[in-house]
């Protein structure tokens, strides 16, 4: 019994101590979650860049063959407007998918 008492010499923490410790940890976790949320936004996902590049792809496909490829973009997700200015065509591209819409792009291609 003497030995047992010697081993059980740990003292119980006070309630106040536990409350302070928990609040410190919760504040810390709160900040951690805020940081996590700020970093992993839809704008930084790989999927965003993948879709974002699709609007750039339009420029290159339009340069190659305007008429034959325009049907490929004839869906609800794409909104492509062209404006003829003499020997030039200004193309404005808007793209959206189920989650979000992407920045608008505009560029010039020659009007052959």
């Amino acid at each position, binding site marked *: 019994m003497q030995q047992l008492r010697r081993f059980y010499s740990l003292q119980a*923490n006070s309630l106040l101590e536990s409350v302070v410790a928990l609040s410190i940890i919760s504040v810390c976790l709160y900040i951690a979650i805020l940081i996590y949320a700020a970093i992993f936004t839809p704008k930084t996902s790989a999927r965003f*860049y993948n879709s974002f590049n699709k609007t750039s792809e339009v420029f290159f496909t339009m340069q190659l063959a305007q008429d034959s490829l325009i049907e490929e973009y004839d869906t609800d997700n794409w909104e492509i407007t062209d404006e003829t200015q003499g020997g*030039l065509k200004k193309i404005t591209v808007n793209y959206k998918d189920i989650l979000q819409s992407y920045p608008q792009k505009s560029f010039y291609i020659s009007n052959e």
Partner: protein
Amino acid sequence: MVKAHSLLYAIYVCLIVSLLCGALLYIANMYNQLNIYYTTHEELYIQNQSLVNYALANPNKKTIEIEEEQTVGSSYELKPYGLLTVLTAKSFVTNDTVTSVHFAAASTNDKLCVFLTNLDRSLSYSGDVKLIGDKKLPSDFIKPIYIDNKPNKLENTGATSVSANSLPDISESLKKSFTQLNGLKVPIKEVPQNNGIYYNSFLRPTIEINLEDPILSVSLKGNIIIRSSDSIVVKSSANLNDIILSDPKIIFEDNFKGTVQAFATKKINVGINVELGYPSSLCINNTTLEKSSIIIKSNSKIYGAIVLYGNTTTDISKNSVDIEKDIILACDIYCTGELTLRSNVYGTVYTNKFVHKTASSGYDNCLADLEINPSKRPAHFVSMPLLSNNDINYAAIKKVL
């Protein structure tokens, strides 16, 4: 009384979490910076190509003129370089610039096959002759001539109309390009060198090198004009890219390969098996009463233009273009003198006079065993701006930077 036991653990937890958060922030920051770098560069390159398209359609402006504000700034300029125009296009954001340089030329939709000035004889043919496309000839009948008892066969498509008694005017830019051939005079030793190639960028002013020795056997690339006192002999070991040669006499030795614009006043000789890549040109401007000639030997390849002009109609016989057999001519030919043609031409031919010579005699305005077919020009081929026209639509020929 607060005991610091579990508080210590709380601080440990905080420390670990903050370390993780710090690492996350750091990585995210790197990721963002890299992505911003890539996307701005990609955007700059796309906008630069778009700017080139815009500049080719609006050669008289300096920048894209639209009302809305643009994230990517732009500026461009066009300046002459021999027969061609150099288009320098810059796209920029705050601290990044993408610059591209293209060779461009006013694009013409010239589907004309042959223009023969209405001076004396009408056009005749001998052997197997193909003339594809519209023609302007002294008379609309092309009569056969029987030489050496060979059978005659003429494939003639396109409309034929009666030609004027002078060739269409040569473009102002071509006339100017003879007088505007000058730059900063620099000795060849001071030109920057890389792997044995002397190179001057198109972003820098044109430089002019005066050769002391007429023999040219070095490697040169870019924005350079070469001159000599009397003549230039281009050795087959020379490696010339996008260079202008300007001298009274220019001689290309056998087996030379390169992309060159040659401007002479007396003589251009092209040896056997020479390849002048696209866009090359051979030009003679002879306003004197002396003789001038362009001679192209067999097995050569010329992609671009061959021009001889300056003489009056009374001096036709003193100026000649002589083209031997088995030459690939993907080019337009403009000749105010006599043109001796023995190879197929994939382009347009303008001349005051055709000459066909056999061992025994010569025939004026006669075409023998050849094809003139502008529709066989390669798809990417933009004709050099030889004639004056008001077309201001430019087309890009080649990216040089």
